């Protein structure tokens, strides 16, 4: 091997090592970022779930008070949540309450069947849609 060739080989090895180092760090960053975004999504989905469940309770409250109007943009905590409550009659004294909460990039949909008896109303069935 001439001196010129050995110099070129050394340069290639150094470049390959640098490239490998950069690729490894980039893969590490991508993997960690994906993990962080997934965790954030899980956090937001859980918050949306409890907001949506509160929306169902709000629906039960409305039915109890003979208010069967649907509602959009209901806010429980002012944390950026947007809760839509849809009430529809499914049978005599039975109502379906659909609560959809959007929080950050996550959303959650819960449905419940509510039976009204006099001045009381209670949930008889929960349906978790997504």
């Amino acid at each position, binding site marked *: 091997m*001439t*001196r*010129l060739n050995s*110099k070129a080989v050394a340069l290639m090895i150094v470049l390959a090592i*640098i490239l490998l*180092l*950069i690729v490894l*760090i*980039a893969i*590490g*960053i991508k993997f*960690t*970022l994906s*993990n*962080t975004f997934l*965790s*954030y999504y*899980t*956090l937001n989905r*859980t*918050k949306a779930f*409890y*907001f949506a*469940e*509160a929306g169902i*309770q*709000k629906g*039960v*409250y409305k039915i*109890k008070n003979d208010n069967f109007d649907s509602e959009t943009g209901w806010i*429980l*905590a002012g*944390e950026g949540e947007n809760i839509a409550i849809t009430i529809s009659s499914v049978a005599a004294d039975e109502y379906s309450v659909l609560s959809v909460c959007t929080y950050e990039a996550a959303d959650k949909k819960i449905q419940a069947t509510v039976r009204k008896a006099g001045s*009381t109303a*209670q949930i008889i069935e929960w349906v978790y849609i997504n």
Partner: protein
Amino acid sequence: MGIHKLKAFTILEVIVAVSIVAVGVLALSAGFIYVKNRNETTHRRLQAQSFDREILETLLITPYDDALLNVGGPYSAESISPLPSCDLKDIFGASRSYTVEQITEGKKITVTTGWTESNGRAEQEQLFGLVIQP
């Protein structure tokens, strides 16, 4: 082949090349460390949220007039369920509390788990729920 073509890199060329590579690798490493720290904080948030859930689930099935749901707070959640020994509690000093607020529809519950990051920044994770009068 002339002698000129076989000349090695000058020290200046090597220093410049190594500097450029060092800056690039350092920038990437700094980015990696930042993202890794964010990831660890997010994992602590997830753990804190699971602690919040435990208390909120308990309070959501508590009778409306129970003393646990007296309007006010923040109340320590230790009496409901003490925080288990974990890094979030033992290293980051996490504590859990809740407040109960009277609103038109019933009682709004806010459960908070707060802790201090190693850089001194205070963090908290909250969950909200609603209990209506039966």
